């Protein structure tokens, strides 16, 4: 069953077209990797999926059978969409635990489940922290404030572990992580993988895909997916660069259409 179905998605801002017709279907149980050069529109796609309203958008996006573009940011989150941000925001003064518990309970409320109290939440948090090998003291601090680059990224995946999304989008979660952290984060993401959820991994590096094995790899170039393939596409890309892809007949055909 498809979780996400993107049909001819276009987006522009200030008259500048960024996404030029994206088609992508993600089914339950799948992991998709999106690669592509800087500025090709990967983050824009991710932001539009979570509900950023800065863009004028055309096309259709169905999520879990519903029209996604009609939904508010928080509604999408409550319906199970999660973005691990490329640049997580620091929120001075808002305690991490308090914030995450509020988010968790909003999602539970939305699902018609009872809210958890502080004790129950703490138990959950402790269990999830182990997966990410995250230092518990981070949770006593304001959200992301003063976190190192790597800590911020790890914290995003920790939030993902707690909120248990149906569709997780990871925007360059690997950048800024040292090799040990990368392995921990990747194994965390793998543990969260189930038959009824899906993941979209945005990355520049094949390295991450050694640890999180994608079912599909897509190359986004100048606002279009110009090539899709299996995990071997990432290896090929690493070897031959984007230039090779652009010149590939499959890509030429797409760009022309």
């Amino acid at each position, binding site marked *: 069953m498809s979780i996400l179905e993107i049909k001819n998605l276009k987006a522009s801002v200030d008259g500048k077209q960024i996404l030029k017709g994206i088609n992508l279907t993600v089914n339950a149980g799948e992991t998709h990797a999106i690669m592509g050069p800087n500025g090709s529109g990967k983050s824009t796609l991710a932001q539009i999926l979570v509900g*950023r309203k800065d863009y004028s958008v055309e096309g259709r996006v169905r999520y879990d059978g519903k029209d996604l573009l009609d939904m508010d*940011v*928080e509604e999408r989150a409550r319906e199970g969409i999660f*973005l691990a941000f490329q640049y997580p925001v620091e*929120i*001075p003064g*808002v305690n991490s635990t308090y914030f995450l518990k509020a*988010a968790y309970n909003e999602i539970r409320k939305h699902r018609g489940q009872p809210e958890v109290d502080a004790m129950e939440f703490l138990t959950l948090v402790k269990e999830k922290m182990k997966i990410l090998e995250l230092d518990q003291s981070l949770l006593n601090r304001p959200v992301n404030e003063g976190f190192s680059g790597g800590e911020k990224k790890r914290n995003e995946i920790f939030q993902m572990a707690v909120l248990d999304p149906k569709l997780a989008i990871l925007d360059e979660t690997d950048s800024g992580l040292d090799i040990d952290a990368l392995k921990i984060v990747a194994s965390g993401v793998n543990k969260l993988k189930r038959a009824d959820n899906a993941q979209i991994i945005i990355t520049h590096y094949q390295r991450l895909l050694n640890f999180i094995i994608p079912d599909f790899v897509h190359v986004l170039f100048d606002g279009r997916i110009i090539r899709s393939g299996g995990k071997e596409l990432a290896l090929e890309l690493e070897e031959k660069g984007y230039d090779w892809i652009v010149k590939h007949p499959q890509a030429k055909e797409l760009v022309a259409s």
Partner: protein
Amino acid sequence: MIQTEKMSPARKPVAPAPTAGQSFLAKFEEFERGRVRQSPDWLYPIRKAGIAHFAELGFPTVQNEEWRYTNIAPIAKLPFHPILERPASLPALKEIETLFIPGLKCSRMVFVDGHYAPELSAIADGIKACGLSEAWKTEARLLERHLGRYVHCEENAFVALNTAFFTDGAFIHIPANSQIEDPVHLLFVSRSSEPGSSSHPRNLVIAERGSRCRIIEHYASLPALSESKGSRSNGSDAPTLTNAVTEIVVGEDASVEHCKWQAESLSAFHIATLQVQQEGKSRVIQHSISTGAKIARIDIHLVLGGEGIESILNGLYLGGGDQLVDHHTVVDHAAPRCASHEFYNGILDGKSKGVFNGKIFVRKDAQKTDAKQTSRNLLLSDEATIDTKPQLEIFADDVKCTHGATVGQLNEEEIFYLRSRGIGAENARRMLIHAFASDVINRITLAPIREELEKLMSERLDREGV
């Protein structure tokens, strides 16, 4: 960020308001012939100087640089009815209790319309605290040495007016090297419903060398502010005036935490001056929380008069409706190697107006001064305004002075992040506003006060912006 801003210390002459002045003089004559006799001889010239300064200064107008953004015409227009007599009947303890800070273990001194009410108060054994009108009999020597020695009657008409008409207030004396364990909660309750009635509480705290104390100076109205009842019309609706003056003397190596909380009714006017005189190596942390009153003007003046002093000024003001809240602070570095850190946050909604003016003087001898000031302001509506202004006058060359002021709306990126995790837009907004206030609230060391203020924030946010 170092900025030296020259400011002319000369003030524009202010034309005294002759008619107002006369009625005040007449009232003073009457007061002097009656009740004033009960106060000691040494006090008389001080009072007399007070009324003379007031007659000369008159109520300030917006032409006066110090009052440029705060028009107190509504106060000047009121009939002048100082509450000179102790109230004939007191409110019931049960009523007063609604104003207590839950969970705060403290000595409590309750004042009703400016007059000390021992019946409603409870002071722990061994603490030297009493009403000022009693202290001027029992502690004449100390009072004579300190009372009115630090404030500037000649500059501030309201201080002058207080000096002419005060009848009571709190007197607290902490002897050398002693410590007041639990804080002292000074609760000033206004309950008069007569327009123009005014109280002029006068407080004196003497913290001798090596002593430690924590004091809460809390102004509220009866009936109690019912934040949770969905209505902001609390207390009586009469336009009344509280005009308070507090002097705190902090001896060498002494340590004082002072928390002023202004939570008067939304029809009340609140004018207050806090003057703190610090000696070497002393530490002061001073909080000013202003949540009530129609117009609140709070002057806080610290003199760092000895080496190695540490001072913190920590302020939070909330404005909604048509409230006006004005803080004027002065940190006067008069000796070397002192540190002062000032943090003021304002949250303004509706048509409210905020004013923050932070002066830092660094005198010629005050080398190695470390002075920091931040003023952060959150405007929650298009009609709310803030005038924030740092004023640095630096006469020493080896100093570190920084200041920064921000005025802004809530950060959209932060709101988006919170929403992207499932938190509703309104709730996200509230979280950020709350965080902005907590930044200041968290510097208060007394947990029950923090909790009470957090609760107040939540209630105000539940109801409207702030």
